[in-house]
């Protein structure tokens, strides 16, 4: 009897202590959150954070206020980074090798899962590209789709991991584009060099080395003449890059890697450039925005990131003028191409709302190149709109 009384008393004390644990934890976290200042931007996640929403009758009635308030609370939660890294660590112990669509591979490689193809949208885009090529039969139209790391570095994926078949996706796209578009296969080159550092470990982009192999492939396929172009040499511009895959997954938060730029050995060999950010009405004399190296988005150093339209004029001794439709992968390739063109018009259809026919006429375009990475292309919903000058059927 006495023993069971003791047991009951102990149980009661245990419960009382649990009450204190619950209240103290909740109270402490509330307090810390009350004191901590709201932030506007998360460096780590590289995005704008939700701010406290305004309380209006309309917003409450539609439920918009509540939704915003919830994302506000979790965006501004004190110690967010600490909580995120705690979770991913536990997941790893539990055997999980994928978070938010990012695989944790071997050799510190993070690999973005291969995107599922949006068949309808891809069809629209390939149709539009084909129609565009047929509209300018005298001009060569090239298409280079860059395979993603999870495709090229399959042996780095976690054991048994399966992804979408990107090779099959590319084959289908190539077939849909038909003969009027000149397909440039860069997968072979990337796979040949897969043991080199051609992709960042912690970012979804390719490295400048990877881009240089794509450049070599372009030279061959676009019949460019490299004889007059000085040889490039890599220079490290940052050694503390930790990319977006690390942010989205929470893995490898401490892994730092280098970003290189390739430049001619002698400064005087380099072509001069003027980059005109058309919509921003800004001009610079460089392809690199070094201020980006101070922030999180260090890959943005290439051309300062993605802009709707760039007009790059060079001192190259040629009359060739390139129109480039692209995503961010192309940003690392463009510096290699500047010695070959008098002018490169760079269009990022995701942000571009102008008139393509006008661009074609005003800039006397001689070559057209589409350069995308597979994951962006199979999900893109902007190319067809831009090529049809914003007409929607």
């Amino acid at each position: 009897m006495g023993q069971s009384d003791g047991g009951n008393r102990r149980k009661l004390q245990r419960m009382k202590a649990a009450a204190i644990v619950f209240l103290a934890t909740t109270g402490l976290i509330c307090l810390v959150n009350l004191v901590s200042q709201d932030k506007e931007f998360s460096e780590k996640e590289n995005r704008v954070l939700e701010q406290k929403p305004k309380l209006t009758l309309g917003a409450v009635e539609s439920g918009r206020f509540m939704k915003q308030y919830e994302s506000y609370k979790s965006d501004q939660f004190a110690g967010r980074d600490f909580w995120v890294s705690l979770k991913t660590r536990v997941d790893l112990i539990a055997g999980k090798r994928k978070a938010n669509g990012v695989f944790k591979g071997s050799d510190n490689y993070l690999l973005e899962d291969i995107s599922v193809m949006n068949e309808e949208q891809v069809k629209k885009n390939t149709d539009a590209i084909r129609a565009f090529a047929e509209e300018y039969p005298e001009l060569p139209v090239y298409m280079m789709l860059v395979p993603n790391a999870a495709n090229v570095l399959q042996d780095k994926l976690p054991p048994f991991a399966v992804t979408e078949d990107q090779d099959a996706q590319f084959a289908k796209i190539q077939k849909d584009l038909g003969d009027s578009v000149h397909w440039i296969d860069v997968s072979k080159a990337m796979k040949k060099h897969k043991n080199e550092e051609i992709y960042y470990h912690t970012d979804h982009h390719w490295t400048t080395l990877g881009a240089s192999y794509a450049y070599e492939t372009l030279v061959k396929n676009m019949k460019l003449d490299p004889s007059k172009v000085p040889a490039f040499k890599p220079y490290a511009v940052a050694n503390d890059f930790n990319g977006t895959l690390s942010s989205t997954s929470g893995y490898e938060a401490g892994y730092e890697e280098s970003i290189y730029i390739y430049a001619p050995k002698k400064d005087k060999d380099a072509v001069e450039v003027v980059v005109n950010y058309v919509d921003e009405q800004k001009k610079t004399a460089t392809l690199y925005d070094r201020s980006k190296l101070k922030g999180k988005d260090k890959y943005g150093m290439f051309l300062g990131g993605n802009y709707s339209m760039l007009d790059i004029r060079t001192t190259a001794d040629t009359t060739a003028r390139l129109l480039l439709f692209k995503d961010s992968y192309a940003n690392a390739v463009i510096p290699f191409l500047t010695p070959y063109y008098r002018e490169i018009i760079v269009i990022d259809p995701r942000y571009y709302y102008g008139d393509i026919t006008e661009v074609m006429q005003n800039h006397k375009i001689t070559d057209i190149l589409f350069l995308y990475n597979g994951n962006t292309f199979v999900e893109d919903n902007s190319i067809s709109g831009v090529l049809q000058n914003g007409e929607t059927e």
Partner: protein
Amino acid sequence: MLFSSIVFLFTFLPIILILYYLVPRPMKNVILLFGSLLFYAWGEPVYIFLMIFSILFNYICGLDIARNLGDQAAARRSLIFTVAVNLCILGFFKYEGFVLDSLSAVLPVDISYRAMALPIGISFYTFQILSYIIDVYRGHVKVQTNLLDFALYVTMFPQLIAGPIVQYADVDRQLHVRKESWGKFGEGSMFFIRGLAKKVLLANTIGMVYTEVAALAPGKVSVLSAWIGCISYAFQIYFDFSGYSDMAIGLGKMFGFEFLKNFDYPYISQSITEFWRRWHISLGSWFREYVYIPLGGNRVPVIKHLRNLLIVWFLTGLWHGAAWNFVAWGLYYGLILILEKYFLSRVLERLPAVIRHIYSLVLVLIGWVFFFSPTLGGAVDYIQLMFGVGANGLVDSEGLYLLTTNLLLLILLVIGSTPIVHRAYERVMAGRGKILANCVVYAAMFLLCIAYLVTETYNPFLYFRF
């Protein structure tokens, strides 16, 4: 609002708790009611008016039935009217689309309608209201004259959106006489943290495995993947739903309420009959109390008994969702229960426990396929996959990947579905000097849950559909 959300844990709950314990006794129910309405309106700002209408209507009808209790016929008329109105509301919001779709399929005309969002928790609170109305009519409970207490019974936020379905008779007294204490608060905290961990750490995590399998292209599912998918879903729905019930019970205790338990380790069952005694207990009790027994239960000729069982299980299926696969799911269980009652139980008795266990689990898993498949045809296809028809072999790389990366989790879930963990834990903690250890365990669970909640955008709650 979800219990497993930052806003609930660190804004709503602390404020309600502080107010609740600050105000004098008579005001406590007002705070709870006010909080519950806010809790509901947070996710359903417009349907709060439907809720308020339901409360007022049933409050008045309850009074009316009680007033007529002397006159059998009048009381009966009033009861039928009240029940009919409640079922019409439920039917209109939940089953309108289903009925019209089914009619369109049969009739030569196409009937169009505007699909409406389902008011959260309507299936739960309608059943709570009906338990009150019917019990007042039967004289099992005294009519509630205090509108505030009645409104609190209907809206009480701990069990408002996902149960357990509390019968009025069980909380009648507690609505005005109940005792809060440190010990009870602590017990409630442990229940709550346990439930939160079940939901956030286990259910959400294994849920992603199910989602992965469900997203596989038709030709790419091996037998192994199909079973992993189905088992993952079974664990997800159990830990999700029972976790939510634990949180509800825990929150109830924090405010001095005692709710009955809703789950009792259903996956250790050795027959389907036993499974339904252990799964969603409050729903089973409700159907027994208000449908099965009034129809005559089993004290009727065999043919009527069969009819009663089929009605109950047809309705149980329909309650879970307005679609034919839920009906099929209900009838599937109805048939198995009939078989067990009249024939299988005698066979099962002679089999070893392991076989009985496997028999039950396989049937339950097949049942979940009806539950998670979007259509009846989809369910049949999936079941075929599980038995190799149209599957991508017995084992493939995808299946192995799913198995290896989730093996530890799956083992944990298997053990967690049995009473072993809880029993062992209680035995260890019964000793002296374990207070601190217990605190550390619960604090760690709580902190981990917060880490998961802050990180995860993936936080859907399965039982919102009902």
